[in-house]
């Protein structure tokens, strides 16, 4: 439970508050206490002075009975004054409100007397602050405040008629008044209690408030994030986080949603690549296997057909067999063509021309189905690299699909073309790479996402082996042949001649590790960081060229649209909604062609509103 952010935050805040409030109340109580005592001491001194003055005349007249009476009355008047006594110079108690004490002596080394008699020589003047002392008569009793008030020998004293005190004496005795501090102590105790209660209440309130807001601003969105990551972990990429706050967690949630979207797109593409590759192998295998038995059927049936010249009825039947076997041959051929729609023929094409050619083929169909064609072609687009035939096939297929989607009801078909620009980072494929001595580093055998990788010999602190770098600039799906420690600096060499491709003198901008340099023939140098798992790469030659141009073709119809559950599957081989009419290969072939052109195809659709296919083709083949 204390692992949770909320508990930790509340803990930290409570402790901090406790310390702050604690220290504050400590000083507060102390200063209150001091102020109170000063008042008590001041009052005590005043009282002591008043007693002394009221006894002055009685002492001059040596009226001892009067003195007793005053001391007794004040000394036993109540809670405040506990005891009043007068000591003579030798420490003998002459008067006391406590009659038992009279005549007894006080030791001069007693702490009561210490203030004046520290050095065996009595002080002649005692400052007011030093006259007081606090003590306890018994350990469990209330605290007492004792005030010593020296009685000085004044002119009136040594000139009095009794001549008891000679002029030479400075101090005649001491008036000692003892006050009980019970009330003062109780007040202090009360105020301390109040402080503690206030501190506890404020800490509690503070914690509750923090807890409430942490729950609202942190816990809840974090919980949603955790749930979302769990969903991603089990493969569900279609349920975004609903939290839409404007704070950091809101931004995190937004970027998380964005990441999920990208992941899901990538998964579809990857899945597709994978499926196409395995389907290609399957198709090739199937074609090979089926063609052998088909040869048996076709040769024998055509052989029989030739021999059945005199039997027209049999001939007719055999003709059916030959015709249908030939049809099977065409189907298998289609399957084979699908499996090896591998490398497009390199060339230049004007996409607008390609579109126009495709439309020319199908224009009759458009008219037959009452479809209005809207061409919004940008005349200024540059030629794109690629196989015009294959792209024409793509456009044609998409248009045919649109016609099917609009059925007999008619509608509008819109075809647009335009030029767009995208940054090369994460897109551009490296097709050639050499070491400083000119040895080829491209590895046709080891492919990353179907593209030849860049092979380098790598040495870690403990091991050596090969690394295959991702040929897509800035994508970093490298394949590491050996294990590295986290943030280890990797040593890289040409696998052919063993020369180091690391430039120790130059360090990466981001992480400060040495960089590797790979020569891209005629296209500058690819510079990357040698720190393991550090993803920085720079290719100035390409970066300086800025954004790469693509031709975007959009084909929109106003047809029946594609439902949510089907839209993710439409590029899958053998997926068809046309029933017996289609093979389900059309869109997957299209996907393969665009993929082979280093392009992208995507689809958007709303049921009963229409569908839009978007194709992006690079203008330059080297992208």
């Amino acid at each position: 439970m204390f692992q949770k952010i909320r508990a930790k935050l509340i803990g930290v805040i409570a402790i901090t508050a406790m310390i702050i409030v604690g220290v504050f109340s400590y000083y507060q109580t102390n200063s209150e206490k001091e102020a109170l005592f000063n008042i008590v001491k001041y009052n005590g001194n005043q009282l002591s002075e008043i007693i002394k003055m009221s006894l002055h005349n009685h002492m001059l007249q040596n009226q001892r009975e009067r003195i007793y009476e005053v001391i007794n009355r004040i000394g036993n008047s109540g809670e405040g004054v506990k005891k009043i006594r007068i000591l003579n110079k030798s420490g003998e108690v002459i008067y006391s409100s406590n009659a038992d004490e009279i005549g007894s002596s006080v030791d001069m080394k007693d702490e009561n007397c210490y203030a004046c008699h520290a050095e065996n020589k009595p002080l002649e003047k005692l400052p007011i602050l030093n006259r007081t002392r606090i003590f306890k008569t018994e350990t469990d009793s209330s605290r007492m405040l004792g005030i010593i008030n020296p009685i000085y020998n004044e002119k009136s004293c040594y000139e009095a008629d009794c001549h008891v005190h000679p002029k030479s004496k400075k101090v005649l005795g001491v008036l000692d008044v003892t006050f009980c501090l019970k009330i003062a102590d109780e007040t202090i105790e009360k105020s301390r209690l109040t402080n503690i209660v206030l501190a506890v209440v404020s800490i509690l309130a503070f914690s509750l408030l923090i807890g409430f807001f942490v729950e609202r601003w942190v816990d809840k969105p974090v919980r949603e994030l955790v749930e979302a990551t769990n969903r991603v972990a089990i493969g569900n990429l279609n349920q975004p986080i609903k939290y839409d706050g404007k704070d950091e967690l809101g931004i995190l949630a937004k970027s998380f949603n964005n990441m999920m979207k990208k992941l899901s797109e990538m998964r579809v593409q990857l899945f597709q690549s994978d499926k196409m590759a395995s389907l290609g192998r399957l198709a090739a295998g199937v074609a090979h296997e089926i063609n052998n038995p088909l040869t048996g059927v076709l040769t024998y049936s055509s052989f029989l057909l030739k021999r059945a010249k005199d039997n027209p009825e049999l001939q007719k039947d055999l003709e059916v067999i030959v015709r249908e076997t030939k049809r099977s041959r065409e189907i298998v051929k289609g399957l084979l063509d699908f499996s090896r729609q591998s490398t497009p023929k390199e060339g230049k094409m004007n996409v607008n021309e390609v579109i126009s050619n495709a439309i020319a083929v199908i224009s009759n169909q458009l008219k037959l189905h009452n479809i209005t064609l809207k061409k919004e072609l940008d005349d200024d687009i540059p030629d794109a690299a690629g196989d015009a035939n294959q792209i024409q096939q793509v456009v044609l297929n998409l248009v045919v699909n649109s016609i099917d989607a609009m059925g007999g009801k008619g509608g509008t078909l819109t075809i647009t073309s335009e030029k767009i620009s995208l940054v090369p980072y994460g897109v551009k494929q490296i097709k050639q790479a050499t070491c400083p001595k000119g040895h080829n580093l491209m590895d046709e055998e080891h492919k990353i996402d179907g593209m030849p990788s860049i092979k380098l010999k790598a040495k870690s602190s403990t091991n050596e082996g090969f690394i295959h770098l991702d040929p897509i600039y800035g994508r970093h799906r490298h394949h590491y042949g050996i294990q590295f420690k986290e943030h280890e600096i990797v040593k890289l060499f040409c696998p052919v001649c063993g020369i180091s491709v690391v430039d120790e003198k130059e360090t990466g901008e981001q992480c400060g590790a040495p960089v590797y340099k790979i020569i891209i023939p005629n296209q500058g140098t690819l510079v990357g960081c040698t720190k393991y798992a550090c993803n920085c790469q720079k290719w100035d030659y390409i970066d300086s060229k800025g954004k790469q141009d693509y031709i975007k073709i959009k084909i929109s119809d106003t047809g029946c649209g594609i439902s949510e559950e089907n839209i993710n599957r439409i590029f899958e081989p053998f997926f068809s909604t046309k029933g017996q009419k289609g093979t389900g290969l059309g869109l997957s072939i299209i996907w393969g062609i665009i993929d082979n052109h280093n392009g992208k195809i995507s689809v958007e659709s709303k049921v009963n509103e229409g569908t839009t296919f978007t194709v992006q083709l690079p203008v330059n083949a080297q992208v």
Partner: protein
Amino acid sequence: MADKTNKYDILVIDDEAVIIEAVKRIATGEGFKVDSSLSAKEALGKLLETEYKLIITDIMMPEMDGFQLLEELEKRKLKIPVIVTTGYSTVEMAVKSLAKGAIGYIPKPFTLDELLSIIYRGLEFEKIDKKIAKEQFNVTDASIIYVPCPPKYYRLGYNSWINIDNEGSVFVGVSDMYLKTIKTLKSLTLRNFEDNIVQGAICATFEAEDGLIHHLLSPVSGMIIEPNDKLKEDITLIEKDPYFEGWLYRIIPSDLDFELKNLVSCSSDRI
């Protein structure tokens, strides 16, 4: 070779028995003597003791494939014409077969007529080859029997040729040896203007006097910018002058640099 006691017309090599049976049935029906082998290794053994006029081989077989057989035959200097067939019937396979020395390529599944056409062509090839060997002509003298392709031309097997002109367009035609093997030409079906042809795929169809239909595989890919219209008026032009006046198409090649790798330079034939 003459001292070999066993003599057959055709040796069929395929790991599928049904193919062997089918070819045997058709070929023996025409009166040919046919031997067979289920593997290329076994076939190579047979070649030591037996004389064959023509070999028909599959490509994808365990242990040794059809291409390796072609290489082995060339290594052993056995000049038996080979026809290649495969179930993996792609244009790449066709191009590779002809580039490696096969005289013909027939994709599976084939009909009786398609098979017979190529067998007759193969056997005719063998006859011409033997004639040259018998009379011990050197290559230039052999032109009495057939005209080899001119220097600076490129050829796909012995089927078709190209000649790159100065403007970047390419002339495509049929080799004299091919024409000789189909004997007398009766009619010719050409593709049209702006049609695309693909290396290794059929680009023209010839019908011979004997009724057999022969398909010519294109040496390069590209778009036809000019079919030779003169051939419509005078079909004999193609036989009289197959390398110059008898060209078939002028095309704009789409991937010449890459496709040239599969072609043989006619200049090197003459060394």
